[in-house]
């Protein structure tokens, strides 16, 4: 691929930069209802990472996928280059399980909820961005949910420092990468997806940080929905 030797020259970052960027959620933004066709859509941008999500549902379901007492959830992640592979499938499963946990699927039996996520740009924390985009799109589609969810990614650097919302660069350098989906009701962890090695202590720290960060993301959700309804009296 294009970034064959991009890793070189990355080690030259100063500690200053590290200190600044480790405990900060990058600039983030979102737009809702931007596509005309899907029932709900949103983009979620975290720094340069950007995901576009479209949701259809509750819609018609294929007979082979029909479940008699609840809705079928399908999640598709489309990479920017090439066809979806194993990595996308794994992410799809994470997002699908999170959605299933949050949605009240029994209210719409024998129907389907399809979430399509298009990667617009990957600059780290992709899975958490997918989760956030999916949640906003589900909200926009007006599907009944018992609570909201958000995704937070933490990276543990070689020095043992925890970096929240890492960029692609930081992800490459880190020793371990942990992504959590956190629910809005009790700040519980819905799913966790981790790579690399870390101690129990570090895991708990990451969870605690993610829970703190999730409050800000939920506040962001609230602000953006408020803004959206601001013109309706």
């Amino acid at each position, binding site marked *: 691929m294009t970034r064959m030797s991009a890793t070189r020259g990355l080690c030259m970052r100063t500690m200053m930069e590290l200190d600044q960027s480790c405990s900060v959620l990058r600039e983030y933004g979102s737009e809702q*209802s931007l596509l005309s066709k899907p*029932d*709900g859509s949103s983009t979620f941008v975290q720094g340069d990472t950007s995901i576009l999500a479209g949701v*259809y*549902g*509750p*819609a*018609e*379901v294929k007979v082979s996928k029909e479940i008699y007492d609840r809705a079928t959830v399908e999640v598709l992640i489309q990479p920017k280059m090439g066809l979806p592979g194993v990595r996308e499938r794994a992410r799809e499963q994470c997002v699908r399980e999170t959605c299933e946990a*949050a949605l*009240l699927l029994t*209210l*719409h*039996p*024998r*129907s*389907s909820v399809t979430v399509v996520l298009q990667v617009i740009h990957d600059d780290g924390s992709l899975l958490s961005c997918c989760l956030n985009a999916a949640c906003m799109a589900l*909200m*926009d*589609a*007006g*599907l*009944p*949910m*018992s*609570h*909201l969810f958000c995704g937070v990614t933490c990276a543990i650097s070689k020095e043992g420092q925890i970096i929240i919302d890492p960029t692609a660069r930081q992800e490459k350098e880190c020793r371990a990468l942990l992504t959590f989906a956190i*629910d*809005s*009701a009790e700040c519980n962890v819905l799913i966790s997806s981790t790579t690399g090695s870390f101690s129990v202590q570090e895991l708990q720290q990451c969870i605690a940080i993610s829970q703190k960060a999730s409050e800000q993301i*939920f506040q962001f*959700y*609230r602000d953006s*929905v*408020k803004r*959206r*309804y601001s*013109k*309706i*009296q």
Partner: protein
Amino acid sequence: MDTIHACFKEKIGEVLLPGDVFSFRLPESGDGSIKSEKIICGPGLRRNGEEVRVCKSGILRHKQPNMYWIDSQQRRYVPAKGESVIGIVTTKSGDVFKVDVGGSEQASLSYLAFEGATKRNRPNVQVGDLVYGQFTIANKDMEPELVCIDSCGRANGMGVFGADGLLFKVSLGLVRRLLAPQSEIIKDLEKIFPFELVVGMNGRVWVKAKTVQQTLIVTNLLETSENMTSQQRQTLFKRVAEGSL
């Protein structure tokens, strides 16, 4: 003021998100005279034990005496009993028509459910026609069923329509605003020029004005009034009425 209403009243008109909770643990005062209070939870609110949970994002609305619901701007329709919708006939099979109403399943419409229809005298309905009907059966477990007559067997405005005019889709929130009694949008729009309007609860709107041009103007005005304050809307409508657009 009683407790349950109080915690709802505080939030009327506010934007709520799924997962927000109203909890109303009854005060365990010693006298034992627990006053039973009733509230009716509309769309977007669900009871969960001793609390009411919000399950859709939107604005909390209240209607006297004790109705509460969430007003959201979703686009996908979910059939509800008694609601009137605009459907598109997709197939004729045997005794029933299959009608697309925008929900997860097609609704069925019996050919006898038209005014004056008998086994001999079948109504003239073609595939692709528009029908305005009401749900008699609509729940999550059954196929929804439409009728084009009221309980007295009268058409009462329902049935096949739309020989000309234009059908388009808007959000369900806008449709509810259009259908609200004394709807401001419709009132403002009526001042420009006369037109015919059919609004289905499923987000479909049919418009017919004197000319094609006028129909298109009404359509575009309705579509744009989704995200406008009433002031913005009025200035826009005024400009249209003056012919500057």
